């Protein structure tokens, strides 16, 4: 599958942004006497990343001016559900953040709704891919689980960074929570990768229905040039490169951030280390998301 940069950026950015908003939703239980600067930064960054990602996702539409229509088919389409859920999250989160920031009211109820809606949006993103049966790699329950866990891990890493920025310390409890989340998310992702070698659901034999005769191979392509299908669905990275990139993703996304968070617990320069942990994790996520598309094989390639 073609790795479109707008979609990669969208899922990484809104994933982490919504994760951060989800943790801010739990704020009324966890954060005492939050300063205005802290709230402004945390909500600001959460909104900027979520909205920035959503806007970027419209760049890959052929007709972005009609994007509002995508809200209408929530009864069958996960893409539609994602859109509806994203808008609902932003509205609830805006009310929740506004009340807290300007009136000092941290409503636990609105916070919980923000958390649930934010996670619902990320889950819907994962379901869009799960729903595509023609791509074996994606059509698995672990796909939305990975999306959700990465969003939580990214959000938590962002949260402790901002927390440290304004309180001077991330604290061992929050830091270990972030490390555990990073560990779980990447462990599940590795499990997901392990399942990538299953035998394909469809083959050239089943795609042509000629398998009963023997081995089938393409003799002549239907077109001499390229076409939409090959450009959009035909891209696939070689195994050797994929292996290397998986390593890079794990190192940047998990190993480096966890070490930096560990380093930050006793260190005086903890804000710097935590900032670097955020950057490294997001870089690892970009590689992971690129691979998510580049490693996926579409059933239509059985005809080529």
């Amino acid at each position, binding site marked *: 599958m073609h790795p479109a940069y707008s979609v990669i950026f969208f899922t990484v950015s809104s994933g982490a942004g919504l994760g951060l908003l989800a943790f801010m939703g739990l704020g009324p239980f966890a954060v005492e006497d939050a300063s205005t600067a802290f709230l402004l930064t945390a909500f600001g960054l959460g909104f900027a990343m979520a909205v920035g990602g959503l806007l970027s996702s419209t760049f890959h539409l*052929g007709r972005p001016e009609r994007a509002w229509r995508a809200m*209408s088919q929530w009864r069958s389409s996960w893409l539609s559900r994602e859109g509806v859920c994203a808008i609902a999250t932003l509205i609830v989160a805006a009310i929740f953040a506004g009340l807290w920031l300007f009136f000092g009211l941290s409503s636990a109820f609105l916070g919980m709704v923000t958390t649930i809606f934010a996670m619902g949006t990320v889950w819907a993103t994962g379901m869009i891919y799960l729903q595509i049966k023609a791509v074996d790699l994606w059509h698995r329950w672990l796909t939305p689980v990975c999306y959700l866990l990465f969003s939580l891990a990214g959000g938590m890493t962002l949260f402790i960074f901002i927390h440290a920025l304004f309180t001077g310390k991330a604290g061992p409890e929050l830091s270990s929570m972030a490390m555990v989340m990073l560990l779980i998310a990447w462990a599940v992702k590795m499990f997901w990768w392990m399942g990538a070698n299953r035998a394909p659901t*469809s083959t050239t034999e*089943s795609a042509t229905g000629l398998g009963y005769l*023997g081995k089938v191979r393409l003799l002549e392509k239907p077109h001499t*040039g390229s076409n*939409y299908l090959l450009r959009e669905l035909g891209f696939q990275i070689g195994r050797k490169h994929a292996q290397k990139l998986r390593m890079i993703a794990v190192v940047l996304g998990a190993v480096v951030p966890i070490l930096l968070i560990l380093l930050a617990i006793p260190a005086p320069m903890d804000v710097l280390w935590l900032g670097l942990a955020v950057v490294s994790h997001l870089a690892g996520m970009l590689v992971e998301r690129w691979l998510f598309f580049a490693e996926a094989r579409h059933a239509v390639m059985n005809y080529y």
Partner: protein
Amino acid sequence: MTQLPETTERKLGLVIDLDTCVGCHACVISCKEWNTGGYGAPLADTDAYGSDPSGTFLNRVHTFEVKPENQPAMVTHFPKSCLHCEDAPCVTVCPTGASFKRSEDGIVLVHEDYCIGCGLCAWACPYGAREMDAVERVMKKCTLCVDRIYNENIPEDDRVPSCVRTCPAGARHFGDIGDPDSDVSKLVAERGGFDLMPEQGTKPVNKYLPPRPKQQSMGGEDEPVNLAALAEPTASGGFLGWLDGALDRLG
């Protein structure tokens, strides 16, 4: 409306005979010709006369080679267009309601004015039956020539999909596959028509008829004729053989 109808009154579709198709691509061209001027946005070509030509087509012909055991390899031309699936995954994923399946005849269509060009339906179709138009930026697909089959302004003979009307080999048949007494259903029953990728669970309406088994060669029951041997001189070969042939030719 991207929820699928529970059932459709008819199941209009194509039956494609892989035995008769000669791979001439006439259906590809006639499809493009009709559909670029008919229903909806035209089918664009980009860089048509340049080094990297590319275009939108609703029907394409692949050519496969299959090697049965103990038989010479067979070449099969393989036309492919939307199969108007009963459980069309392309329809249910569409976020805008642009993609839909008609309850009266089962045809799967795109309402192009609603389409945002997200491409999700093309991902969902395992058959590669949908192509995004590079110029109009909306999804294009086979309409089963919905603007021909019910069109009372054209002669009755022409009220079939353009590809069916054009095929010089008679390899394409159009009809109601939901009606067991229709000609197409009888053809499917008689010839053992099959579904493409049944494991994808799409329940395609279009059916494919298998190539007939290759006739055994003229040389006898199982032995293929050794053509090289036929070219050999009749005598045992070598100089004497040549002499034998040369004398024969002298009369």
